[in-house]
C-alpha cells in the first residue's frame, strides 16, 4: 500500500513514467509474492512487468538474485492467467543468461508448446530455445520438429526463428531439422516461408554447392512471400559473385525474371542486386537502372529514396548507366523529402558534367543547413570525388567546403570536410594555398582538439613550401596563445618546421619559441626548448634529422625497448636502431579507414616477431632485429604439410623462421627441422628444430645463417628440405600408437633471399636536402637500364618500389597522368644501419628506360643495389 501511495505522490509531482524511480532491491522484494501458495495474477503481473522494465533498462542482477527471482517466477506456472503466463515467458528469456539452473522450466515449457492453448505456444517455444544448451537439444528436438511444421503460422515462425538463433551454438543439432524446414518453405504464410528460407540458408551457408541447389530448387517453385523472394535474390546474387558466373547462369536469369514480379519490394531488390554485381554487362545494367528510374518517379517516398540511394552508391562504378537517369534525378532535387534531395544532388555531382557543377553546388547550399550530419557527410564525399574529377573547379568547391566548415557539426562531419580539403591539397598543387588558408581560418575557431592538431601538423609540413610562408606563422602562433596544451604543443612543432625550412624566418621563429619556453605546460616548454636549441645550431643535417623527419618507429616497439633498457643495468647507451620501424601508413590505407588515424595503432608485425624471437636464447646474441619479410609459401596450400617462411635479417645474420602446419590427423611429427642448402658465402650458424607438431597445430623451426662477407653474394637462392620423425597415431585421441617413429623428409620449394629482405623502409620528409647533404659524404653509383617488360610508368614505379624495398619520398610514387618522364625518389636503411638514397629517373619510350643513381654510406651496398636491379 505504501508503494502505491508513493507512486501517487510522484504522479502529482509532475507525473512522468510510471516506473521512473523503481529500485532493484524493492522490486526483488516485491517479487516474493510469486512464492505465495495461491498466485494473485493481477499483482504478480504488475510486479513482473516492473521486473522486465528494470532488466530492459540495463539493470544487472547477481547470479544469486537472478536465480532466486527466477525460481520464484517458475511458481507462476500454476496460474492459468494468459497475460501472466506470457509475461513469464519473457521473464525466462531475460533471466536465462543470468540465472542458474534455468533448465528447470524445460518440461513446463514443452508442455505449453505442445498444449491446446495457441496463445501459449509461440512464446513457450522462444523461451524454451533461450534456455536450451547444445547438450539439451536432443531432448527438445521432437517438439521443435513438430512446431516447425505446425499449422499455426505464429508457432511455426517462432520455431524457425528460434532454430536460427540456436545455430550459433548448436549448428550440428539444428541441421537435423532440415526436412521440416523444407516443408515449412512450402507454407502459404508469407512470414513462415521467409523464416524457413532463412533457416535453410543458415544451415547450409557453409556449403556452396548445397546453397546453389537450394536456390535452384526454390527458383523453380515461385515462392509466394515477397520477403522470401528478396532473400532468395540476395543469396543468388552472392552465389553469382562467388562463382564468377556470367549473365547466362540460371541464378542470373532468375534475378532478371524478378524485374517483372508484382511486388515493388522484389523488383527493387532485383535491380539493386544487378547493379551491385561486379561483372555486369551494360545491357543488364540498363534494364536494372531503368527499373530504378521508374521508382524515382514513384509516389511513395520510400521507393524514391531506395532508388536514389542505390543510384548514388553505384554512381562511381557505373557512371554511364546512372547518367541515363539524370533527368529524373534533376526532378528529385526539389523533392520535399530532404534525404531524397540530398542523395539526388550528390548523385548528380558524381556523374554530372563540369558545367553543371556550379549550379548544383548552389542548389545544395540552399538546404545544407536543414539536413542531418550523416547526409552532410554524403555531400562531402561527393565533393571529394568531384574535386578529384574536375581539378579546375577547386576554387568553388573549396569555398563551399569552407562555408560548411564554419557551420555547426559533429567531429565526424568536420573531420570528413578536413580530410577532403587535405585530399584536394595533396592532389592539386594549385589548390594548396587556398586550401591552407581555409584550414587556417578553421582552426581559429575549432572545438575538436584532434582535428586542430592534425591541421597544425599539416601546416607545419606544407606551409614552408608555399610562396609566402610567413603568413601562416601568425595563425599558428595564435594557437599558442589561445588553446589547450595539446594544441599548443602541436603549434610549437609546426613553428619549428618553418624555422628549419625557411632560413629567413629563423630569427622570428626563435623569438616566438623563446616566448613559448615560459609556457605553463611541461610538454609545450620541453618542445620549445628542444627546437630552439637545435635551431640555434644552424646545422641543416641536424634540422633534417631531428625536426623535419618524424620518428618512424612503432610506438609499441619503442615502449618495449625503453622498458627493457630501464630494466637492464644501462651499461650500454640506448640504441635507437634497435627499435623496429613502422613504415608511415600509405595514402590508400588512409582513404579506406580515415578513423584509424585517431585510434591506437595495433602493434606491428615487426613488434610481434621481435618479441617472439627475443624469447629464443640462441637468437639473443645476434643483436636487435633489423627487418622481417612477408611470409613466403614454400608448399602448395593443400598439401600434407604446409610450410611458410619468414626471413628475419639482423646486422650480420639471417634467421629463417619456418612455420609448419601438420594437416595429417594420423601423424604426430617430432623433431621437425629444415635443412637448407645455403648459397655461396653463407654459413649455417644454428638449427633450432620444433620438438613436436601434433595434428592441426603449427610450430616454428628456425635456421640461423651468417651473411656472406662480400655483399653481392647475399642475394641468393637456397634449396630447402623438411626433415622430421613421424609417429603414427590414433586420429581420435592424437596419442601416438608406437614409441619409435621413423625418419621422413619432404621437399620444399626453393627460397630466395632478395635485396628487399635486407632493407628497411625509411621516410625522408625532406628528401632533397638529404640527397644534397649526401653528395660529398656518401659513395655514389649510377647506371642505366632498359626495362623492356614494363609498359607504363606506373607499373615501373610499383615494381621498382617492391623490388628494392625502399620507401618512396615526397609522394614521388604517384605518376602524374600524361607524362612520359618521371623521377622516383626512394630512401631506406640497409642492414647494419647503412643509409641508402636512390633516385630513379624514368622515361617512357618503347618500354621504360631508367637511370638509377644510388647514394649510400657504404660503397658495397650501393654496388649491390645497382647490380641487383640489372
Amino acid at each position, binding site marked *: 500500500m505504501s508503494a502505491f501511495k508513493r507512486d501517487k505522490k510522484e504522479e502529482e509531482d509532475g507525473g512522468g513514467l510510471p516506473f521512473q524511480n523503481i529500485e532493484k532491491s524493492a522490486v526483488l522484494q516485491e517479487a516474493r509474492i510469486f512464492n505465495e*501458495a495461491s498466485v494473485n495474477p493481477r499483482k504478480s503481473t504488475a510486479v513482473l512487468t516492473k521486473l522486465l522494465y528494470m532488466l530492459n533498462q540495463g539493470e544487472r542482477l547477481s547470479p544469486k538474485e537472478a536465480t532466486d527471482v527466477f525460481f520464484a517466477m517458475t511458481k507462476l*506456472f*500454476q496460474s492459468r492467467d494468459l497475460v501472466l503466463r506470457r509475461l513469464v515467458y519473457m521473464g525466462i528469456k531475460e533471466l536465462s543468461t543470468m540465472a542458474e539452473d534455468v533448465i*528447470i522450466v*524445460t*518440461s*513446463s515449457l*514443452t*508442455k505449453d508448446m505442445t498444449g491446446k492453448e495457441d496463445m501459449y505456444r509461440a512464446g513457450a517455444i522462444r523461451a524454451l530455445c533461450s534456455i536450451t544448451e547444445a547438450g539439451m537439444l536432443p531432448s527438445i528436438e521432437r517438439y521443435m520438429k513438430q512446431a516447425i511444421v505446425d499449422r499455426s503460422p505464429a508457432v511455426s515462425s517462432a520455431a524457425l526463428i528460434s532454430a536460427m538463433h540456436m545455430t550459433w551454438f548448436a549448428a550440428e543439432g539444428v541441421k537435423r531439422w532440415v526436412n521440416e524446414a523444407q516443408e515449412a518453405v512450402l507454407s502459404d504464410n508469407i512470414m513462415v516461408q521467409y523464416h524457413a528460407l532463412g533457416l535453410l540458408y543458415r544451415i547450409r551457408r557453409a556449403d556452396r554447392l548445397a546453397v546453389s541447389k537450394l536456390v535452384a530448387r526454390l527458383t523453380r517453385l515461385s515462392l509466394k512471400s515477397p520477403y522470401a523472394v528478396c532473400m532468395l535474390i540476395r543469396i543468388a546474387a552472392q552465389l553469382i559473385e562467388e562463382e564468377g558466373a556470367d549473365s547466362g547462369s540460371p541464378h542470373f536469369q532468375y534475378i532478371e525474371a524478378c524485374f517483372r514480379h508484382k511486388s515493388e519490394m522484389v523488383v527493387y531488390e532485383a535491380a539493386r542486386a544487378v547493379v551491385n554485381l561486379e561483372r555486369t554487362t551494360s545491357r543488364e545494367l540498363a534494364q536494372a537502372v531503368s527499373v530504378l528510374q521508374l521508382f524515382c518517379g514513384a509516389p511513395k517516398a520510400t521507393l524514391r529514396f531506395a532508388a536514389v540511394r542505390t543510384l548514388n552508391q553505384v554512381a562511381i562504378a557505373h557512371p554511364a548507366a546512372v547518367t541515363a537517369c539524370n533527368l529524373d534525378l534533376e526532378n528529385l532535387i526539389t523533392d520535399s523529402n530532404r534525404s531524397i534531395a540530398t542523395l539526388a544532388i550528390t548523385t548528380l555531382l558524381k556523374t554530372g558534367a563540369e558545367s553543371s557543377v556550379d549550379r548544383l553546388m548552389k542548389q545544395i547550399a540552399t538546404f545544407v543547413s536543414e539536413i542531418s550530419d550523416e547526409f552532410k557527410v554524403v555531400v562531402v564525399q561527393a565533393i571529394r570525388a568531384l574535386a578529384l574529377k574536375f581539378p579546375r573547379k577547386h576554387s568553388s568547391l573549396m569555398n563551399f567546403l569552407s562555408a560548411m566548415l564554419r557551420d555547426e557539426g559533429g567531429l565526424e562531419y568536420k573531420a570528413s570536410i578536413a580530410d577532403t580539403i587535405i585530399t584536394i591539397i595533396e592532389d592539386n598543387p594549385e589548390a594548396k594555398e587556398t586550401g591552407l588558408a581555409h584550414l587556417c581560418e578553421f582552426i581559429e575557431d575549432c572545438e575538436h582538439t584532434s582535428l586542430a592538431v592534425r591541421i597544425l601538423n599539416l601546416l607545419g609540413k606544407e606551409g614552408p613550401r608555399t610562396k609566402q610562408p610567413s603568413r601562416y606563422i601568425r595563425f599558428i602562433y595564435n594557437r599558442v596563445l589561445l588553446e589547450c596544451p595539446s594544441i599548443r604543443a602541436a603549434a610549437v612543432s609546426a613553428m619549428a618546421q618553418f624555422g628549419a625550412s625557411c632560413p629567413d624566418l629563423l630569427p622570428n621563429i626563435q623569438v616566438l619559441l623563446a616566448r613559448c619556453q615560459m609556457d605553463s605546460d611541461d610538454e609545450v616548454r620541453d618542445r620549445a626548448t628542444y627546437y630552439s636549441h637545435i635551431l640555434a645550431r644552424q646545422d641543416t643535417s641536424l634540422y633534417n634529422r631531428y625536426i623535419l623527419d618524424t620518428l618512424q618507429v612503432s610506438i609499441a616497439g619503442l615502449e618495449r625497448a625503453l622498458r627493457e633498457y630501464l630494466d637492464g643495468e644501462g651499461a650500454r647507451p640506448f640504441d635507437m636502431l634497435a627499435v623496429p620501424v613502422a613504415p608511415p601508413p600509405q595514402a590508400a590505407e588512409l582513404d579506406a579507414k580515415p578513423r584509424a588515424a585517431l585510434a591506437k595503432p595495433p602493434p606491428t608485425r615487426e613488434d610481434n616477431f621481435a618479441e617472439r624471437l627475443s624469447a629464443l636464447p640462441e637468437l639473443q646474441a645476434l643483436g636487435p632485429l633489423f627487418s622481417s619479410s612477408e611470409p613466403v609459401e614454400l608448399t602448395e596450400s593443400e598439401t600434407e604439410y604446409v610450410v611458410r617462411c619468414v626471413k628475419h635479417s639482423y646486422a650480420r645474420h639471417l634467421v629463417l623462421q619456418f612455420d609448419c602446419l601438420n594437416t595429417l590427423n594420423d601423424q604426430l611429427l617430432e623433431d621437425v627441422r629444415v635443412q637448407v642448402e645455403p648459397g655461396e658465402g653463407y654459413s649455417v650458424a644454428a638449427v633450432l628444430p620444433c620438438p613436436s607438431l601434433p595434428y592441426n597445430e603449427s610450430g616454428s623451426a628456425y635456421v640461423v645463417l651468417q651473411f656472406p662477407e662480400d655483399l653481392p653474394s647475399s642475394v641468393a637462392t637456397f634449396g630447402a628440405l623438411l626433415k622430421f620423425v613421424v609417429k603414427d597415431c590414433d586420429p581420435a585421441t592424437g596419442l601416438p600408437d608406437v614409441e619409435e617413429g621413423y625418419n621422413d623428409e619432404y621437399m620444399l620449394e626453393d627460397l630466395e633471399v632478395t635485396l628487399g629482405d635486407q632493407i628497411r623502409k625509411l621516410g625522408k620528409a625532406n628528401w632533397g636536402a638529404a640527397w644534397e647533404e649526401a653528395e660529398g659524404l656518401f659513395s655514389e653509383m649510377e647506371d642505366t637500364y632498359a626495362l623492356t617488360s614494363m609498359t607504363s610508368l606506373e607499373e615501373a614505379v610499383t615494381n621498382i618500389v617492391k623490388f628494392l624495398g625502399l620507401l618512396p619520398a615526397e609522394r614521388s610514387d604517384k605518376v602524374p597522368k600524361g607524362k612520359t618522364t618521371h623521377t622516383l625518389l626512394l630512401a631506406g636503411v640497409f642492414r647494419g644501419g647503412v643509409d641508402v638514397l636512390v633516385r630513379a629517373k624514368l622515361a617512357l619510350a618503347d618500354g621504360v628506360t631508367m637511370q638509377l643513381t644510388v647514394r649510400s654510406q657504404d660503397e658495397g651496398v650501393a654496388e649491390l643495389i645497382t647490380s641487383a636491379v640489372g
Partner: protein
Amino acid sequence: MGLFQRLANFLGVRKKDVNVLVVGLNNSGKTTVVNSFKSEDDRITDIVPTVGFNVERFQNQNLAFTAFDMSGHGRYRDLWEHYYKNCHGIIFVIDSSDRLRLVVVKEELDLMLQHPDICQKKLPILFFANKMDCKEALSSVKIAAALGLDKIMDKPWHISASNALSGEGLQEGVEWLTQQIREMLSVKS
C-alpha cells in the same frame, strides 16, 4: 473478494487451493501418478522423462490440488528444495521393484527431511510404493522398514502400495493426504 465467494467461504464449500510436491527418483512413476489424478480428458498419453518440473492440477473432495511434479533425474534433484516452501504436503513416489536403488531413495528422503524448510513443519508425507504389479516388487511394509519410516515421529506419514498405470491404490493414498491437509488447515485457521 466478491460477496458470493465470501458466502461460499463462510459455508465451507469453497474449494481451497493447496500445493503438493511430487518427488522421488527418476523412473519411479511420478508423472504417471499425477497424470492418473487428472480427469480423463486432460490426461496425456505418452509420458517422457521430466526435465525440471511440471505443474498439474487436480481435485479431491473440495480441495484444489496444485501438484509440482519434480524431475527425479540425479542432475535436477538439487532443485527440489526451491519448492519446499509454501507446500502443504509431499507425495514421495518409490519404485518398489528397484531394490538396488532403495539406499539412494533413503538418502534423498533423509536429505529432504533435514532441510530447514521441511523439518520445522508438520507436513503430511504420502509414500507410494509404486509398480506393485511387478514381479520382484517389495511389499509396502518392507519398504517402510527399509527406509526407516518408523523413525519419522514429527510428521504424519502413510505408505500405500500402488500401480499408477491401472490407478490401483492411488485413490486410497490421496484420500489420506486430503484428510491430513484438511486437518492441518483447520488447525491453522
